[in-house]
Structure formats: structure tokens, C-alpha cells
């Protein structure tokens, strides 16, 4: 592998990792607050992609002249809003009535919700893959020498970084973020201090789902064939990323996503490319066996 090839793969890996990071953030936040794996999270990502598919031809024509660059931004923001609403609705209808039940009950429900979104999506959108409309021109960014960086990759990087900064701000600097951290730390104590747990949980689901929706749009820019089952594999891989970084840990999820994306791209470019989909799972098993708390996580002793 020449150094150009190496850096090219690195760039591709970073852009794949950016999507995983965005999805992984949702997993991590929900896990932090509710201590359960929201299996349906990958499917919110899929719904985000389909929002982009249906919104783009309806919104873009309204943005002409100097407003042209705002078109994709409008699509992105509207998609994030729709996905946030979807996430909040799922939590209200399916998970909230089960909050006192054993974890396994909630996990099974989450699998049910995931299947419902996937196959309900097949029912509504049709099972055939659709080609994602051109939200923004996709061409190579000039001035990068032998390397190819496409405009969509660049946009994905920029949007991901902006969203990460916004998220960090919300979690660290706002009252809602403080309440989120409090609930994550000790829900009972937070409730006693007057934090409304239901509001915080809804907010967390909304935030995570909005990020997944954004990831759906950005992913579809680079991989423009979308179908209702597209969320399953990225969803599970993003979960692996979240575990890799230490579940419940927000910067950990971002770093985990990037690492996973880079590893996967390098394996995909090697002689073992057909094993690509097994990498994430093998990685997951290795982490859980040797460092279950992840890279940034702290291991906690179980209280009896």
C-alpha cells in the first residue's frame, strides 16, 4: 500500500466513522439515561434517510439564487426535527410503560419496534432500493493533490463536527444537559432534586434521534442507494462503536465511531474484504471480553 492509498483509505474511513459516530451518540445517550440498548435506533437512521428522500424534491426548488446553499441545510434540519419527534413518540408509546419492568422486556420491545420500523417502512416506502436525490453537487474538492476528497465527504465532516460541538454545548452548558447528566448519574436522586425524569428521557431520545436522522442524510449522500433495511447493520455497528468508546460516554462514542470506520475501511480495502461485516462483531466480542467498560469508560462494581 502506497502512502497515497493509505491516506485515501484513511479519509474514506474517517468519513464512514463520522456516520457511525453520529449514530453511536444516540445509543450512548439513551444508555446513559435509561441503561438499555435502544435497538430501534438504527431504524431511526433509516427513517432520516427516507425523510431526505421525500423532502429534497419538495424543499430544494424553493431555495433559489443566493439561498441555494440553504436548501440542504433546511432538509437536514427538518429531517432532524421529524426524527426527534419519532424518537420521542417511540419512547412514549413503547418504552415508557415498561420502565419498571425487567430490562429484558424492554430489550425485546425494542427489537419489536425495530422490526416494525423496518418492515413497516417496507410496507410504506416499498422494499426496492431507491436512489437518493442529489441534495448537493458531489465532486472532488480541488487542491488536495493525489487524494480525492469529495464535497459530500467534506460536508459530512463539517456537519458532524458542528453537531458534536452543539451536543457538547447542550450537555455541558445548559440546564437540560445538566439534568441529563444528573439522571444518568443517579436517577432517584435527580428526581428528588426536582428533575422531571420523563421530560429528560424524552429530551434524550429526541436529541439522539435527531443525530441519527442527520446521519441518515449524510450517509445517503455518500451511499445513495437507500432501502428500509439499511439501518440494521449501521445501527448494530454504531452500537459496537458506542461500546468501544465506553457506553454512556459521549466523547467515547465519537472516538469509537471513527476508530471502527477506519478499521472497517482498511479491512474492506484488503484481501479480507468479504469479512468486512464480521469485523465489527469480532471487535465487539474482544472488547467485551477484555475491556467491557470500553476505552474511556470506568468499570463499575455491581451492587448486590
Amino acid at each position: 500500500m502506497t502512502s497515497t492509498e493509505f491516506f485515501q483509505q484513511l479519509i474514506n474511513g474517517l468519513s464512514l466513522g463520522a456516520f457511525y459516530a453520529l449514530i453511536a451518540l444516540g445509543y450512548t445517550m439513551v444508555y446513559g439515561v435509561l441503561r438499555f440498548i435502544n435497538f430501534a435506533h438504527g431504524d431511526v437512521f433509516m427513517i432520516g434517510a427516507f425523510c431526505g428522500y421525500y423532502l429534497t424534491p419538495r424543499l430544494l426548488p424553493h431555495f433559489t439564487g443566493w439561498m441555494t446553499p440553504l436548501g440542504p441545510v433546511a432538509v437536514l434540519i427538518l429531517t432532524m426535527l421529524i426524527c426527534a419527534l419519532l424518537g420521542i413518540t417511540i419512547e412514549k408509546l413503547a418504552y415508557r410503560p415498561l420502565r419498571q419492568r425487567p430490562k429484558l422486556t424492554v430489550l425485546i420491545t425494542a427489537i419489536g419496534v425495530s422490526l416494525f420500523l423496518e418492515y413497516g417502512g417496507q410496507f410504506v416506502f416499498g422494499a426496492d432500493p431507491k436512489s437518493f436525490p442529489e441534495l448537493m453537487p458531489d465532486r472532488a474538492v480541488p487542491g488536495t493533490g493525489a487524494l480525492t476528497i469529495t464535497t459530500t465527504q467534506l460536508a459530512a465532516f463539517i456537519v458532524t463536527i458542528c453537531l458534536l460541538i452543539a451536543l457538547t454545548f447542550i450537555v455541558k452548558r445548559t440546564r437540560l444537559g445538566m439534568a441529563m447528566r444528573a439522571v444518568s448519574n443517579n436517577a432517584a436522586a435527580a428526581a428528588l432534586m426536582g428533575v422531571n425524569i420523563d421530560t429528560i428521557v424524552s429530551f434524550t431520545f429526541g436529541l439522539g434521534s435527531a443525530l441519527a436522522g442527520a446521519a441518515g442524510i449524510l450517509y445517503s449522500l455518500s451511499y445513495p442507494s437507500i432501502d428500509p433495511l439499511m439501518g440494521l447493520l449501521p445501527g448494530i455497528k454504531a452500537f459496537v462503536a458506542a461500546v468501544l468508546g465506553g457506553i454512556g460516554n459521549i466523547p467515547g462514542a465519537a472516538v469509537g465511531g471513527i476508530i471502527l470506520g477506519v478499521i472497517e475501511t482498511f479491512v474492506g480495502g484488503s484481501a479480507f474484504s468479504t469479512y468486512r461485516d464480521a469485523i465489527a462483531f469480532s471487535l465487539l466480542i474482544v472488547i467485551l471480553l477484555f475491556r467491557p467498560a470500553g476505552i474511556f469508560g470506568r468499570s463499575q462494581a455491581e451492587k448486590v
Partner: protein
Amino acid sequence: MKYRHIKKWVLLGAVILSAIGSHFSGGMNSYYLQIIIFIGINVTLAVSLNLINGYTGQFSLGHAGFMAIGAYVSAYLSTEHSAALFKALGTNFFSITLLFIAVLIAGGIAASIAGLIVGVPSLRLKGDYLAIVTLGFGEIIRVLIQNTDAVGGPRGYSGIAGYTTLFWTYSVAALTIYIVVSLIDSTYGRGFLTVRDDEVAAEAVGINTTRYKVTAFVLGAFFAGVAGGLYAHSTTYINPSGFDFQRSIEIVIMVILGGMGSTAGVAFAAILLTLLLEYLRFVAGYEWLPDLVRRIAANRVIIYSLVLIALMLLRPQGLFGRLPRRGIPIGSASKRAKLPANA
């Protein structure tokens, strides 16, 4: 202790019944016969998964992976390595029976070795983590098979002899039920239940929880492997994508619907779901039904998912399961402050 041997008699009766049924199945519509065989295979799968998920309280989402190993190993052996046996014994009823039993057991053993490998991480993980790891194992197995050219890779493996009969399917199902029920009823088998009910307490009274968990995985995987062998020799063609995550979910739904930890319930649910899903095919073809109903009937997974969600909200113990005696009483949740699980 008048009824001490009743289980053995029931097992013997079931085997004889399936032999009689098998004898008369020659004139049967081959479509119905296939469905009846699938029911038997699904009963075996569901009952064996119930040992892991229901009785031992682990949550495995990779049962289709064990089934795949059993299917591929037994199909490969019976297709590629049967020539020597037939040469020595001639191709007759006896040699075929011998071969079939041998390849089914070989498939089961291969699957149980995989079960051992999956069982080891289960020592450290529980609940949702274990679910994801077993799911991952299932997918890894599928990817490995897809990359094995000797068994056709992604094209699938065809030309498997159709040895599976009603007799074999139902004898295996009866034997699985017999072994699981006898095991759980035995003194040794109570250990599985203690691991499920309270691992810490079990360990405190000297129960080797590690060994029980691994045993559950190895045994459950063995029967799944045998069921996979039956499946392969029934359809005569197998494909890696037939053993994906969705297949695992199907088996999990049978266990949950029947009630985790109730063998009779799980077997009943396997029969019910297999029949129901076949019936839906007909519903999808009824011209007089509204288009929407027919389209929903054609998409079986929507129905799965709704069954799962409704079941968890309304009757989490399944049709025949019992509620755990310990813990927060279900139904009072609405009156309490709804705190997350980490409270």
C-alpha cells in the same frame, strides 16, 4: 412414585406415533408434509432455545447460527463423505439410517462446540450485552459460511439428499422435549433455574453458575444443530441468508410467545406460529379481502413485530409462562414514580 416412568412412556409413544405417521405420509400432499416437518423442526429449535433463554435466563439471539452450523456440517458430510460408507454397506435402508443418524449427531456436535465458544463470553455478560454478542456470533458464523467455497459460499449448497422424514423430525422433537424436561426436573437441573432467578444467591449456596450457563449453551446449541441437519435434509438446498438474524428472531418470538421457561407453552407457540405464518400466505391471496389487509398479511414481519410489542406491554410472561415471584409487581408500575432502571 407410580408415574416415575411416565415421561419415558410418553417419549416412546411419540416416537412410535411419528413412525406410524411417517409410514402413512407417502400419500400426503407434499406441501402439507413439508409444513408438518417444519413444525417439528421449529418445535425442536424453540424448545432448545428455551433451555438457554427461558430456564437459564441468558438471552441468546444467535440460535440461527447454531442451526446453520448443524445444517452445513451434516449436509456436507452426507453429501461429500457418504460414498465410502455406501461402498462398504451398500445403499440400503440400514446404511442410510446409519449415515443420517451419524451426520445429524455430527452437526449437533459441531454446533455445540460453537455453543461452547459462545457460552464463554456469557460468563461475563448479561442481559442486553449478551444478546448483542450472540447476535454478533450468529452473523460471524453466517459471514464465515458465505466465505467457505467448499459449501457453495453465498450461492448456497444444493444437492443434499432428502433423508428427513416425519419420523426423524418428530422423534428428534420428542427426544429434545424429553431431555429438556427431564433435565429441568432433575436435582441437577434445578441449578439452571437458580442461575436465572438469582445468580448471586445461587453462587452463594455453592452452585457453579459458570458451568450451568455453558451447559445450557452447549446443549441448546446441540439440538439446534440437529434441527439444522433435519432442515438441510428436508429442503435439500440451504443458503447462508436463510440463517440470518431474522431467523433467530423467529425462534426467539416462539419462546417469548409460549412463555419463557414453559416447554409445553414454547412447543405450542412453535406450532401455532408456523401454522399461522403459512396461513397468512393464503390470506394474502384472498381476492375478497381489502388490499391493505392482504398486503399486511403478505408482510409477515410486521405481524411479528406487533405481536412482540403487544405481548411485552400486555402479557410479558407469554401465553403459558409464569411471572417471577420476586421483584416489582407488574401492574403497579403506573402508580409509582417512573424511574429508570438505574435508580
